[in-house]
């Protein structure tokens, strides 16, 4: 057990937790009966994916992906005189977190809230039409509706 933890769990701690959170979300999306509970589960499911992406952009000992003003002002004269090749050494990529996953996840967060908004609107309409937000009651009413016809 000990070596398993050292090799498989500790170096990937964030990834294990992301799987757990994701499964909690997915389970409640499928199993919960209340529509709003389902939606909270869906949001949690989506944030788990954000956790995956942001985790894979982390670098040990790196700072936030906003360039240091001092580094920039010192290096700018060399840039103009000796071209971009020289400039590449002025900024050490290991000092800054990987910005690309952050950009992707900004998009995903916005998509998530948009989806949540639409889903909540649908929930309100379902409540208006059926008087309940429990899925089994809605399905029973639909069945009754179908039998009448």
């Amino acid at each position, binding site marked *: 057990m000990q070596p398993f933890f050292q090799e498989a769990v500790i170096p990937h701690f964030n990834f294990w937790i992301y799987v757990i959170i994701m499964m909690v979300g997915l389970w409640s999306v499928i199993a919960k009966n*209340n529509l*709003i509970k389902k939606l909270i*589960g869906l*949001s949690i499911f989506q944030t788990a994916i954000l956790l995956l992406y942001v985790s894979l952009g982390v670098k040990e000992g790196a700072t936030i992906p906003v360039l240091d003003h001092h580094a920039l002002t010192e290096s700018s004269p060399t840039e103009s005189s000796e071209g971009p090749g020289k400039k590449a050494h002025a900024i050490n990529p290991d000092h800054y977190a990987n910005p690309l996953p952050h950009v992707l996840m900004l998009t995903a967060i916005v998509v*998530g*809230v948009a989806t*949540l908004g639409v889903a*909540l609107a649908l929930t309100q309409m379902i409540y208006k039409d059926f008087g309940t937000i429990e899925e089994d009651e809605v399905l029973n009413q639909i069945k009754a509706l179908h039998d009448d016809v």
Partner: protein
Amino acid sequence: MIVTFDIIILVFLVIAAIISLSVKDLLAAAMIFGIYGFLICLLWAEMGAVDVAFTEATVGAGVSTVLIVATILNTRRKSTD
């Protein structure tokens, strides 16, 4: 990135997720979902993703919770599970 901080937040995150999905009072679930949002915002900040943290704080913890609460007040507060 601070590993202890990271682990503490992650553990709280799992707890918040499970509680918010298991309470029967939907308003409480929405509030705990807001807490979940703030925790995950802290986690982003801790991992160096400040822009994502900013967005999560406004969108995830702020607007999402308000929207859920608005819906709960317009429908019903009790849930069977």
